């Protein structure tokens, strides 16, 4: 007991005894500022209640029916609490932002960094001082709630739960703003949180199923009003606004909301703990001074790097997080990514296969479309979270004396996301099976005439999306190992995915047309054109549709698509792996020099600089390059044999290129002979 108390006291001191708490206690809790915010909230509640009453008189208004049904007291109470929800959505993100940017803009972040202050403590101080602030904001509505209670307000339990939800939601907004502010610029994070909050409030007011909605307390607050407003559709609306139905289970609305808030909050808190991913490689290892090789020739671009400078500055702050957290950065980051994706996936899949929603739809096409859009968004979110630049490619997680590279950790995250998404999706489809069975009987435009066909269409389409996500991930990592920032890698990946989806659609359309031509010569071109076209996931989805509707030929076409994806995965996978190996080798070579040890290879014969292994070249790929055995100087960039820098390597490179070309021609020939038979399959 005494120990627990001591621990609690220590935790309290940790939270309260720090600079952000000092500053907040002085500034935010000062009577003037707090008074202004409280006055504003009070005024807004008064105005909202006044407007709500002014809106009542007309006989035909739905609102009047609601008030008659639930009573004036509960109605006004809910208006007051709803107004508070909106106020919190605006005030809290603004209150939370500026914790990192303030000291940066004002030029004293370096002084904070050198105090050795842990970022966790800094953020915890903000959280601790925010609690009385939130309580003050919430308490501002208490007189109104008490006043409206005299007119027969809400039940005590509902009022207490509403306040608890409001307090938790304020905390979610706070933690989300802080967490996003770590990985993005705080101005962008603030705008994003305000935008997301606005979106969540809008969704909560629409009749979206609670499995998808319920991101704000508004959904719970609106429940009594919806039941009264719905008239003839009362049961239907009650189902939508009521408990969340997910994978056959029913969860109370507030519990489902709090569970998701907790998961998102945990992900944001982890981000606040571990900070942005960063490796202190030359050029990105000075506070406020990012100068990379070649910058003298491109001064314009150097000036355009405030975001990179910010990331480096924050990396210095997050060095203070302590050795244990430093060791656990990669797994904790992976956990945060999985939490965010899990919440998004549950919402998206749960939304699409919600039984009540299915009952409201007459045929399957929109379900399939929503399903694919939802899954694409989840996979895109995953790729966004896994982005990273050249410096981070050198990072590794040390487990039991072995290094697990970042590429492997991220691949594991992607595997878990893809596997989890397929499992969640399958579970959702199966639990919605009875409703789907009823739907397909009215199936119309897609030609999906039985439940099994829909099951095949939806799961095979998801497989195509997952295949694209895997190739996209490898492109992301291949580019990430070579470009400065994760944003650039993401741009390259987006371009690739767009080109892969759109460009082969032209030969695919031509091939489809040629396959129906009367003459055999034209039909002979159809196979290769279709084979080229099937590099596109869009064409593959078309093939899935052919299989599902038993139009025939889709099986072979899908195989062509998977062969393409396999080839892309092979090429980009090797390129990504080699890129990460090169970055890691460079980091280890510099680390050896730092420890005063010899580098892994003899020094550069031209400048004496350290050298690191080359893992990929255009002429030898990964295998040929490894067989020749080359190393690159980190200073002058000269490439020479790893073991003996004086030895020549032109002949070996030519041989490797010849072998590579021969293999390529053989594989292309085999693919062409197979593709010629595809014309009849379409």
């Amino acid at each position: 007991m005494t120990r627990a108390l001591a621990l609690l006291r220590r935790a309290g001191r940790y939270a309260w005894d720090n600079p952000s708490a000092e500053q907040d206690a002085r500034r935010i809790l000062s009577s003037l500022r707090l008074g202004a915010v409280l006055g504003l909230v009070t005024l807004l509640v008064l105005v909202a209640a006044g407007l709500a009453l002014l809106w009542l008189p007309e006989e035909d208004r739905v609102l009047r029916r609601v008030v008659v049904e639930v009573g004036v007291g509960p109605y006004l109470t809910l208006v007051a609490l709803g107004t508070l929800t909106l106020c919190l959505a605006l005030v809290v993100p603004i209150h939370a932002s500026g914790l990192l940017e303030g000291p940066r803009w004002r030029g004293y972040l370096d002084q904070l960094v050198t105090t050795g202050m842990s970022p966790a403590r800094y953020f915890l101080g903000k959280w601790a001082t925010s609690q009385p602030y939130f309580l003050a904001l919430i308490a501002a509505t208490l007189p109104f709630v008490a006043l409206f209670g005299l007119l027969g307000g809400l039940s005590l339990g509902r009022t207490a739960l509403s306040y608890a939800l409001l307090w938790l939601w304020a905390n979610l907004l706070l933690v989300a703003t802080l967490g996003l502010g770590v990985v993005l610029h705080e101005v962008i994070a603030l705008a994003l949180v305000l935008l997301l909050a606005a979106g969540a409030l809008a969704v909560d007011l629409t009749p979206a199923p609670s499995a998808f909605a319920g991101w704000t307390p508004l959904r719970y607050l609106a429940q009594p009003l919806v039941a009264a407003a719905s008239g003839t559709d009362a049961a239907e609306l009650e189902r939508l606004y009521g408990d969340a139905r997910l994978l056959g289970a029913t969860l109370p609305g507030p519990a489902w909301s709090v569970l998701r808030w907790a998961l998102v909050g945990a992900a944001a808190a982890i981000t606040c703990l571990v900070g942005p991913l960063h490796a202190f490689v030359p050029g990105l290892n000075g506070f406020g001074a990012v100068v990379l090789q070649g910058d003298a020739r491109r001064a314009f671009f150097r000036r355009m790097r405030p975001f990179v400078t910010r990331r480096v500055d924050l990396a210095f702050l997050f060095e203070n997080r302590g050795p244990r957290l430093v060791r656990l950065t990669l797994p904790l980051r992976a956990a945060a990514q999985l939490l965010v994706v899990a919440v998004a996936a549950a919402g998206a899949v749960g939304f699409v296969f919600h039984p009540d929603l299915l009952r409201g739809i007459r045929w399957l096409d929109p379900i399939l479309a929503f399903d694919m859009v939802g899954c694409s968004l989840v996979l895109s979110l995953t790729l966004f979270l896994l982005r990273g630049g050249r410096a981070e490619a050198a990072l590794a997680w040390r487990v039991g004396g072995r290094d697990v590279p970042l590429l492997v950790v991220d691949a594991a995250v992607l595997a878990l996301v893809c596997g989890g998404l397929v499992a969640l999706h399958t579970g959702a489809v199966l639990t919605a099976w009875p409703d789907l069975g009823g739907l397909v009987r009215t199936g119309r435009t897609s030609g999906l005439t039985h439940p099994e066909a829909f099951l095949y269409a939806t799961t095979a389409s998801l497989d195509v999306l997952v295949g694209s996500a895997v190739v996209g991930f490898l492109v992301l990592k291949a580019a990430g190992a070579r470009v400065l920032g994760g944003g650039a890698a993401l741009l390259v990946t987006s371009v690739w995915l767009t080109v892969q989806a759109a460009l082969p659609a032209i030969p695919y359309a031509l091939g489809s047309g040629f396959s129906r031509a009367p003459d055999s010569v034209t039909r002979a071109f159809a196979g290769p054109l279709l084979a080229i076209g099937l590099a596109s996931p869009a064409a593959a989805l078309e093939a899935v549709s052919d299989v599902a509707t038993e139009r025939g030929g889709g099986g072979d076409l899908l195989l062509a698509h998977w062969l393409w994806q396999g080839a892309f995965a092979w090429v980009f996978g090797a390129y990504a792996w080699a890129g990460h190996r090169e970055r890691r080798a460079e980091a280890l070579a510099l680390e050896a020099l730092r420890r005063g040890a010899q580098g892994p290879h003899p020094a550069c014969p031209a400048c004496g600089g350290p050298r690191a292994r080359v893992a990929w070249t255009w002429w030898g790929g990964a295998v040929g390059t490894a067989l020749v055995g080359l190393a690159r100087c980190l200073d002058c960039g000269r490439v020479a044999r790893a073991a003996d820098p004086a030895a020549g390597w032109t002949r070996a490179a030519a041989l490797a290129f010849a072998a590579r070309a021969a293999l390529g021609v053989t594989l292309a020939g085999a693919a062409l002979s197979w593709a010629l038979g595809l014309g009849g399959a379409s």
Partner: protein
Amino acid sequence: MSGAVVEARDVWKRYDTTVAVRGISMRIERGSLLGLIGPNGAGKTSFMKMVATLSKPDRGALRILGRDAHTAVAAIRRRLGYMPAELGRMPDMTVREYLSYFGAAAGVPRVERERRVRDVLELVDLVERQDSLVSAGSTGIKQRILIAKTLVHDPDLLVLDEPAAGLDPRARIEIREILRELNRLGKTIVVSSHILADLEEICDAVAIIEHGELVTHGRIDELTDGLRARREVHTWRVRVPPAERERAQEALLALPEVTGCGLDEEGLWLETGAPTGNPALRALLDAGVTVLRFVEQGPRLEDVFMRGTDGTIR
């Protein structure tokens, strides 16, 4: 306790094509007050930032307070006091609040923090200004506030970047006194400055950096003695009553080792090949001259600096 507080071994720092620090190896002993000097762009700020853990060496090993500056950064920072060249634009804070803010950041418990703030305010003589705004102070006051901030968590190593920059003579003298006092209290101090006279007054050791290289490093008296030993001609300044100047000059010029002697507004000067001034002093006394002052115009830090650096920009 003795030993190296900062130990740099073949440290390099590069900004694209510019090599800012080129293989510097240096030890800074516990309790020493080291002045880091060099022309503009020599690489001293780059080196200072590495010692302040705000920059990583591209190559080479750097140990600060016995720990690796790459891996044990948080532990180093808790025992390090860094004074940047500029205060930054602090939000509206009084001097006391500012010190308490950074004390809290450094993890000084609230109760102890108040005492520490009071102590450092006394040390830098700012007790009377403790309730005025930080932003309202003059440059000298701000420098003192920065020094107080650096001390509030009682660090072992102080890294001070240009503490006397932009100060008037009185403020410079005051800052000098504070640094002396801190060194007496056992703090290890690394200070960079362009004002050689100040550094000569307070530092016991200097490191001269030029073109990113460590030109020379050692105790000031050893460096000046070394320069002195290499001199072939030694210059002395002699003060005698005005009425006896000509007699003194005659007596000195009569000595065989004296190569030159003259009069100027400060008195007499003489150049001699002998390493000591004893023969000249004896000759003056024998001639009945009243010697008010007899000092060697010895090599100073300025001479060490000028001899060690070439002033070119690469």
